[in-house]
């Protein structure tokens, strides 16, 4: 147990309250930034408190460590494009996991093992195991998102069984280790298994499922932080870990539910190709049946519209079309049309992905609507502009009981007068399923990169003014 005077302990209590407030303020976009300030304050208090600990005697590693970390963290945050947020978050889970695991090892190394209680030993085991698992798992997720590793599920028969066996093995190892804390090899063995499972459990999951994986790893990182708190008797770590863990867990549940898939299916189903060109052939055979629209056709339709709903999807992020869509929206508004944005909870590749991109392009958040709030309005809408969305507008989810996405809530875009779909080809989206929306008579497909197409719409409309 670390020696703590009550001032230090109190600083941690203050930090805990601040972190709770940070998350509480995130319930409203108006107050959320205040929450961040409070969080920064709490973190500062906790760090100052910690530096007052008598165990801390040398600063020659601390100062450069904090400096390097601040520089790297600051740089990463200042310059990363918003479209790369999933990658950014995967990477930071990797850092978090590594930090927890290393603290765990250093705690073990610097104590006489027999001084440590069974609780501490158990906590150290959890901390390092989940820390390393999060570390390598998040790196794999990052690699898949960045395309450094193939997004396809890489698997072979029996891999899941091997993973489960390794997991159980490390649990058994932990029990032995608690009874014989002096057996360092068992401890390092547990670490090694964590490192390996992180890789082998993520590799067989398709690239497009990475967001669920990342959220799940988030909850493991939380678990690992809480375990650290148990090991070094630090409540703020337990609290922060629990908040982090529940957040990851709730978001991953939310995503699986909105995708209408079970957790088990995500983790072990090797679902999704993560590579939309793979399904090209199936799409091409049906090519003749859809209305391909020209820029002029689409511009005329938009010109006549009194009400337009934009449905953005993953393709908006791919083509970075958020600014282009906003500019087009402004032109339509100036011409007197009402423009709204319909945001599906799993549009894009991360919860809240579309909201952030549109906010970046200065779309006011009171024009962004959740599915419950806008789904009845499509019937009274002149034009729906589908910008790189596919699965979230697939009517099969409502009508085709055999479809793997049957039951997933989708937008009723087909109820509007005209649907304009922007995509590059007739390829499928994330789920690899064909979308009959594209072949309906009131749908017009405009092929091409979303950003370029939107810009062409804009210039076409401007020439007509």
């Amino acid at each position: 147990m670390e020696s703590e005077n009550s001032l230090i302990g109190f600083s941690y209590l203050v930090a805990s309250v601040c972190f709770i407030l940070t998350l509480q303020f995130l319930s409203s976009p108006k107050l959320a930034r205040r929450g961040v300030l409070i969080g920064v304050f709490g973190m500062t208090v906790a760090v100052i408190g910690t530096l007052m600990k008598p165990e801390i005697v040398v600063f020659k590693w601390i100062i450069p460590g904090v400096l390097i970390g601040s520089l790297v963290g600051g740089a990463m945050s200042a310059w990363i494009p918003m479209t790369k947020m999933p990658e950014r978050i995967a990477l930071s889970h990797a850092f978090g996991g590594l930090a927890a695991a290393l603290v765990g090892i250093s705690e073990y190394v610097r104590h006489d093992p027999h001084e440590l209680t069974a609780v501490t030993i158990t906590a150290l085991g959890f901390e390092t195991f989940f820390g390393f698992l999060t570390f390598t798992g998040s790196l794999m997720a990052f690699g898949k998102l960045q395309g450094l590793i193939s997004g396809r599920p890489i698997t072979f028969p029996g891999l899941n069984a091997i993973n489960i066996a390794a997991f159980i093995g490390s649990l058994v190892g932990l029990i032995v280790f608690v009874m014989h804390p002096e057996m360092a090899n068992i401890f390092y063995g547990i670490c090694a298994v964590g490192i390996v499972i992180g890789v082998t459990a993520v590799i067989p999951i398709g690239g497009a499922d990475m967001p669920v994986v990342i959220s799940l790893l988030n909850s493991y990182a939380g678990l690992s932080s809480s375990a650290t708190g148990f090991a070094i008797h630090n409540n703020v770590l337990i609290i922060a870990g629990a908040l982090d863990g529940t957040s990851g867990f709730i978001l991953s549940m939310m995503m699986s539910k909105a995708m209408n898939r079970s957790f088990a299916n995500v983790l072990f189903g090797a679902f999704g190709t993560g590579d939309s060109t793979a399904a090209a052939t199936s799409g091409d055979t049906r090519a003749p049946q859809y209305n391909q629209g020209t820029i002029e056709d689409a511009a005329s339709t938009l010109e006549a519209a009194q009400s337009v709903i934009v449905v953005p999807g993953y393709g908006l992020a791919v083509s970075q079309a958020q600014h282009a869509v906003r500019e087009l929206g402004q032109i339509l508004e100036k011409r007197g049309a009402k423009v709204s944005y319909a945001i599906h909870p799993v549009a894009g590749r991360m919860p809240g992905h579309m909201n952030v991109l549109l906010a970046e392009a200065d779309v006011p958040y009171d024009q962004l609507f959740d599915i419950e709030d806008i789904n009845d309005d499509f019937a009274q809408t002149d034009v729906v502009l589908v910008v790189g969305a596919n699965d979230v507008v697939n009517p099969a989810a409502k009508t085709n009981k055999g479809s793997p996405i049957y039951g997933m809530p989708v937008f009723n875009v087909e109820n509007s007068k005209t649907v304009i779909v922007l995509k590059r080809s007739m390829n499928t989206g994330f789920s690899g399923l064909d979308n009959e929306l594209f072949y309906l008579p009131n749908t017009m497909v405009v092929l091409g990169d979303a950003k370029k197409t939107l810009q062409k719409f804009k210039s076409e409309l401007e020439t007509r003014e």
Partner: protein
Amino acid sequence: MAQDLLFSLYILVLAGFLGHHVISKVPHLLHTPLMAGTNAIAGISLVGSLVAAGGDFGNVPTILGFIAVVCATINTVGGFLITDRMLRMFKKKKPGAR
């Protein structure tokens, strides 16, 4: 020992329930900042890293501690900055504009 464990369990249980309520109240709109924000908060593991890096416990713990300090600082500094950067972008329609 048992007493300590029990206390830690109390904290974990209460914080878990609290997390459930607080997180469920965050709207879809802010789910990406939420992910970045919890990341920043989890950077509190810095507190453990500082002890490892600043203590006089020999080379191995110190070097591990140093790496941990770097990682945790990246998370907490970077996390708060990017959360704020995102939140700054969320604006309500100006009443004057249309």
